[in-house]
């Protein structure tokens, strides 16, 4: 009996101590930006839709069922980019870093879906999958305070030449500097990260082949894209196989 009581008190004390030290520790943190950001100095790239099986797209362009999930994922992903959701967002000056350090309420820049052209899902509800020109959205990971230098753009290449023709929306895969920097979830409430749509026009004689595509971020000296260990730092590789 006594021994149980002892441990009850002992562990109660330890739990209280743990809670207290954690509380003290959390008090030292800002709710706006993390104390350190050195572990993510450069952003990773990611695509949408993201297939369950390790970034490989398999679909039949004549079978709507085979790409239904990609389409719905894209639709869902783009919901937050819908004009109705961007009513509070402002139009920023393109090509310039949108510094808001002095402002308490950080504004978000508008990203018009029309910039995504054929991949905006407005004209082609299947994002090109039914026509054999599937769209993949490439996005750059959000990092608080990141200010890309130069003219960052996404460029994708296929190892197998001539199998696929790649189109970018906005043109040349440019990522506008006005969307930077990001101020964090709590300060920058309606922030939308810029997207680059990549439309792959698979050659008709290359169907059934597996096409490996690698997208990289280029044109910005402070965005790394060739890290040995991190395969997603400033780049992303995926595969597409389309049948008819």
């Amino acid at each position, binding site marked *: 009996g006594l021994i149980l009581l002892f441990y009850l008190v002992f562990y109660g004390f*330890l739990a209280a101590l743990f809670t207290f*030290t954690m509380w003290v*520790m959390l008090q030292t943190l800002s709710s706006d930006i993390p104390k350190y950001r050195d*572990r993510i100095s450069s952003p990773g790239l990611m695509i949408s839709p993201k297939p369950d099986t390790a970034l490989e797209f398999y679909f039949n362009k004549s079978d709507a069922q085979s790409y239904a999930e990609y389409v719905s994922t894209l639709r869902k992903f783009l919901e937050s980019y819908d004009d109705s959701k961007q009513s509070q967002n402002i139009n920023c000056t393109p090509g310039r870093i949108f510094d808001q350090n002095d402002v308490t309420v950080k504004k978000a820049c508008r990203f018009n879906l029309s910039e995504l052209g054929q991949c905006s899902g407005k004209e082609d509800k299947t994002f090109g999958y039914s026509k054999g020109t599937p769209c993949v959205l490439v996005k750059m990971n959000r990092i*608080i305070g990141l200010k890309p230098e130069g003219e960052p753009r996404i460029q994708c290449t296929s190892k197998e030449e001539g199998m696929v023709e790649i189109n970018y929306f906005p043109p040349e895969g440019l990522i506008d500097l006005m969307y930077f920097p990001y101020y964090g979830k709590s300060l920058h409430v309606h922030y939308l990260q810029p997207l680059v749509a990549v439309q792959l026009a698979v050659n008709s004689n290359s169907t059934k082949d597996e096409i490996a595509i690698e997208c990289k971020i280029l044109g910005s000296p402070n965005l790394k894209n060739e890290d040995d260990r991190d395969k*997603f730092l400033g780049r992303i590789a995926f595969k597409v196989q389309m049948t008819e």
Partner: protein
Amino acid sequence: QDDHKLSTSDLEEKYGTSITKGLSSARAAEILARDGLNSLTPPKATPEIVKFLKQMVGGFSILLWIGAVFSWISSGIQIAQGAESPFDNLYLGVVLALVVILTGIFAYYQEAKSTNIMASFSKMIPQQALVIRDAEKKELPADQLVVGDIVEIKGGDRIPADIRLIFTQGCKVDNSSLTGESEPQSRSCDFTHENPLETRNIAFYSTTCVEGTATGIVINTGDRTIIGRIASLASGVGNEKTPIAIEIEHFVYLVAGVAISIGVLFFIISVSLRYMILDSIIFLIGIIVANVPEGLLATVTVSLSLTAKRMAKKNCLVKNLEAVETLGSTSIICSDKTGTLTQNRMTVAHLWFDNQIYSADTSEDQTTQPFDQSSPSWTALSKIVTLCNRAEFRPGQENLPIMKRVVVGDASETALLKFAEVILGDVMNIRARNKKVAEIPFNSTNKFQLSIHETDDPNDKRFLLVMKGAPERILERCSTIMINGKEEPLDSEKAEAFQTAYMELGGMGERVLGFCHLYLPEDEFPDTYPFDTDSMNFPTSNLCFVGLLSMIDPPRSTVPDAVSKCRSAGIKVIMVTGDHPITAKAIAKSVGIISATSETVEDIAKRLNVPVEQVNRREATAAVVNGMELKDMSLEQLDEILCNHSEIVFARTSPQQKLVIVEGCQRQGAVVAVTGDGVNDSPALKKADIGIAMGIAGSDAAKNAADMVLLDDNFASIVTGVEEGRLIFDNLKKTIAYTLTKNIAELCPFLIYIIASIPMPIGTITILFIDLGTDIIPSVALAYEKAESDIMNRRPRNKKTDRLVNEQLAVYSYLQIGIMQSVGAFVTYFTVYAEQGFLPSTLLGVRVNWESNAINDFEDSYGQEWTKYQRRYLQWTGYTAFFVSITIQQVADLIIRKTRRNSIFQQGLFRNKVIWVGIFSQIGIALILTYGLGHVTALNFTPLRFQYWFVAVPFAILIWVYDEVRKLLIRRYPGSWWDKNMYY
């Protein structure tokens, strides 16, 4: 075997041989084919590879092998599934296997150092023997000898087999390797004793012929010889597990039990939480690795060998490492007398002259004698002692202390010579000035020694006749007695006084000699008088009795103190000697084995004046048991004696009876230490829990059978050994408590990882770096800790109840300090993650997504997105932080483990310098790992922000304060609930 009783011709007939011609070669070959080679069969040795493999699967090795195999299986599955990093588990398996193999090699190496008992027996075999075969003398390899061979032996030879002597010439053999008797013994052809071991006409295999020549018939060869039988007896005596081995086994079972049950429990939990089987297996590996103190067994070995080294400095050479601790748990020491308790040399202890007994100084380093030397009787006595003595110092030793000089002469004469030299100075010069003109040496029929000298007084032309010998024989030849320098007639009153003194000295177990002299009248014996010792043309009666001197082999001066230490340490000291009971008892009394107030049954009988049978045996605390009585005793009777008497002396015992005594003590549940030197002590030495061989007097076989060799043959060294042994037991407790603590801090991360699905707080490799890296030197350092209190004031530990790892130790380490460490480490872990953007609330339940290779935009609490590799690197930072926190808190753990009861301040924070070496090494290794090797990916360390080193510091201080409070309460309230539950 009655070969020693048979006549020569009977022997010839029995063995089909001829004394003059020997065997024929053909017959010899036949017998050789029948009996085999004349050599000792070595015991079936365990093949080295088997010994090695045993080390590979002993202790925790099995658990680690299981871990390694699971690692390989899971990495195999991962490779088959084409996972991203399948080699992590492969490496882990290799590392685990390496850990097992390296610790196995270490243990094997330690064991290999303990030598094999048979090795020295086989070394004793003589190479060549001179044999008569086909009527010719032949030189043969000794292993070719067969029963019936006629062999010739000369001085310096080793006896090639057991031989019945048929012709001897001044033959003496050194039987010390067999019986422990150091005096060479003469051999003859005569049957002198029923017992083949005692009779003079048999020479034994492996003993040495010191001088003379002999011829004999081989009666036993190889394993059938006496020494062969002893060898097989010794190797037949099972090697019992040492107490510390039992303790360590108990501890291994305990830890393995905890590891397996937690492992299996969480395997079931993780499977029922719908983890994949593969993941569950990986968790299981982690739990096993976290739970097993990989470095501990090696640490224990190192600690033991450190103590062994320290003991070697104190003249206890330990052959078997585990014996270090056995000595500490010893509860009975069966000690030899001669040489161990005593100085092994005769020394004058008492004198009687002028009707008074004087005591002499018997210490090892005497330079003067304090008794009253003014009486003219002493002058006369000293003259006899000086002159009637044939012993001489070997030349060239003038610079040595008198007691250390080598003397040519027998034991009593040596004693007298040294005694005289100490008091009178240059004895040789005195002898030269009193020229010897005639001498009759001592012989057993006369029982006296006599010499006649000129005097050194130029005016005194008389001759001086001096005589010494057995007191009663000397007194018979005297008609006067010297009192205060004057000759007085020896009346019955004075004879009575002599008798009383003689009885008193004899009763002290001392060897008494009488001394008398006579100045020969000048007119009857002019300086040209031809003294003839054969016809004895001089008076040998009506002499003047001068005094008595008694001698004893005195106890070593350090022994009484050592015996009383044993007494306060609850160790029973039993004297086992071949000596006469009276001598044995006297020595036992003088060293305190029999204390001043206790009585034997015989003493009580004498005091009460009743027959021995009427005395209540329970009243007697002491007992002196004669070897002859012991022979007729049943085991129950022996047990009764060992049980009822606290002070026991076994006198007149044969070395074989030692084994019986040891077994008797062991039946009482005691841990028995036994000293011995002869070959035939080796079964007892092996049987004992700890056999102690004498380094100087001991035979090789005894040294081989023993666990420990006493380099200075001194009993007091055993006691210092006991002290060291007890200390190491206490310190091993500390080491184990220290090591077990952090296992909880290594285990908790896994459990919480499984249950709360947080990112992994610490890696398996990292755990190995703690167990085999930072923690090793500190845990060895605890072996240098000084005793907390006088460990020689408590009873020997009870084998059954005083465990090395008891419940309190495990519970306190695991459930209290270990949990505190875990809390401290988790605070650091959460701090690292929170400051990088993952608040604790975000971390719960993220495991699957966190570890998914496909998710490269994992969102943190601030909206930032992380790639898999960025998360992984953060995870390693978490590992490093957790590792550093454990290390920091282990420093506190190390400091609190210095004592179990006393405050650290009582013990002194700086007295044990090695602890500080440990602390610095711990922190140094952690610094190297984090900053030096922080970029080696395979090790999973990252350079850590400096402030994270201090997050756990408050917890480290808390651990220390908590333990001080624990100790304070234990000291304040002994016997309380707290004391019972918190003292380990």
